[in-house]
């Protein structure tokens, strides 16, 4: 197992979420769920992050921010779309300012459903993301050889 998958660092960005999923992401870090015991740390810096957690759908104003954050992250990287809005637009899919799920702008590896996504399913999504991260790391290693 690569070192990154033992202690992945997470970057959280709120695209246009209603906060429900955001506070559940933060709840994952606090004593009841405490993902830090698995080495998962929330960082504010895209350059240090391995996993990008995005909550909420994408709109015209923030699509460039989402793209920039994704591009600033070093490879290998995994994108986890948290909540139904990030997956497909959810309850807001018919709103005039919503372009759709996060996958309309950047490639998404893991989709976490729910409104709001429960902390258990967010943790599950991140763990599924770790498998993708390891796969990507191995591919990069093979390409180097």
């Amino acid at each position, binding site marked *: 197992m690569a070192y990154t998958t033992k202690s992945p660092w997470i970057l*959280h*960005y*709120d*695209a*246009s*979420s*209603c*906060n*429900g*999923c*955001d*506070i*559940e992401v*933060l*709840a994952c870090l*606090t*004593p*009841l769920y405490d993902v830090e015991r698995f080495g998962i740390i929330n*960082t*504010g*810096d*895209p350059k240090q992050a391995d996993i990008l957690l995005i909550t*909420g*759908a994408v*709109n015209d*104003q*923030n699509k460039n*921010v989402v793209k920039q*954050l994704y591009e600033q992250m070093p490879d290998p990287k995994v994108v986890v779309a948290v909540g139904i809005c990030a997956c497909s637009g959810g*309850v*807001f899919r*018919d*709103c*005039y*300012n*919503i372009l759709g799920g996060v996958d309309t702008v950047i490639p998404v590896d893991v989709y976490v459903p729910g*409104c*709001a996504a*429960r902390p258990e399913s967010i943790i599950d999504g991140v763990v599924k993301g770790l498998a993708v991260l390891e796969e990507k790391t191995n591919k990069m290693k093979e390409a180097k050889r």
Partner: protein
Amino acid sequence: MGKRTIVPFGPQHPALPEPIHLDLELEDEKVVRAIPSIGYVHRGLEKLAETRDYEQMTYVMERVCGICSFGHSYGYTGAVEGLMDIEIPDRAKYLRVIFHELSRVHSHLLWLGLLADAMGFDSLFMHCWRIREKVLDVFEEITGARVIMSFCKVGGVRKDVTPEMLNKVAGVCNEIEEEVRKTGMVFMKDTSVKNRLVGKGVLSKQEIIDLSAVGPVARGSGFDNDVRTTEPTYKALGFEPILRDEGDCYARCMVRVDEIIQSMNLIRTAIKDIPTGDFCVPVKGPVPVGDFAYRVEQPRGEGFYYVQGNGTKNLSRARVRTPTNINIPALVKTLQGCDLQDVTMLVLTIDPCISCTER
């Protein structure tokens, strides 16, 4: 006079859980001017009222904001009930108050945690969020969901709460109060916390009136505009607003700590006095032609709801005026002349909820 530098703050920033962008114009370390720009979370959900009927719209309105989601459904259903001339049962009114106050407790604890996190006091952040989980457990046990509960509906509430459960809630209130009294002391007495808060971002009572600030920001400067004082159910519970005179970040923080304790008392009184009877009335038919406005005191301040009916099942207009939106001018005012390192504190003490602001 030093050279002016512009420092961008946000939209993605470690101190902010949500995206807001500020251009900070600096002269050395002093902020001369702050120019906010918003729109990162704008969805345009008010327009959905034209395609969703008024009952479906309750669920959309709840998702204006996930933190004060109960407050939004409370305000919206209140406005629709006013428009349709529905009198909801007393038991539903009390249940709404209990849930609204529980939401306030969870919102304030969440905010105290974020404040501690922004000043780098991580253990305090963890403690605040640990206490908050008790409220979420209550929500989960009654409604099945942790943050967005869909408990309010037009005509009352979705389900009744058993007396045993209400007793349990009262027990949880006692536990939370005990914990908050301990943790609140840290905010009240700790030197490192006080150094970051006392005397920072002072707003006088006159400035509050001029900038029409609401909620704990206004009450921290001694200006009482708490909507709860006008609500009959709260009057029956003996509600008195909490006011402080200092007008700085510390006062705003203390107002919120005291409000948690006060909410606990309100919930316990409400549980003691709750009348028996129906928990909702049946609602049928289209919305009449006309309009109605309703105000609710949310954790962040006054929320204003306006609905306009056109004789069909769809509303022709649903409008929300949210507290953070109103408090942004006050924030910009406090940022003028502050030090750069205080910016995160000042931004946080208005308790910004950007998804409310932009809807």
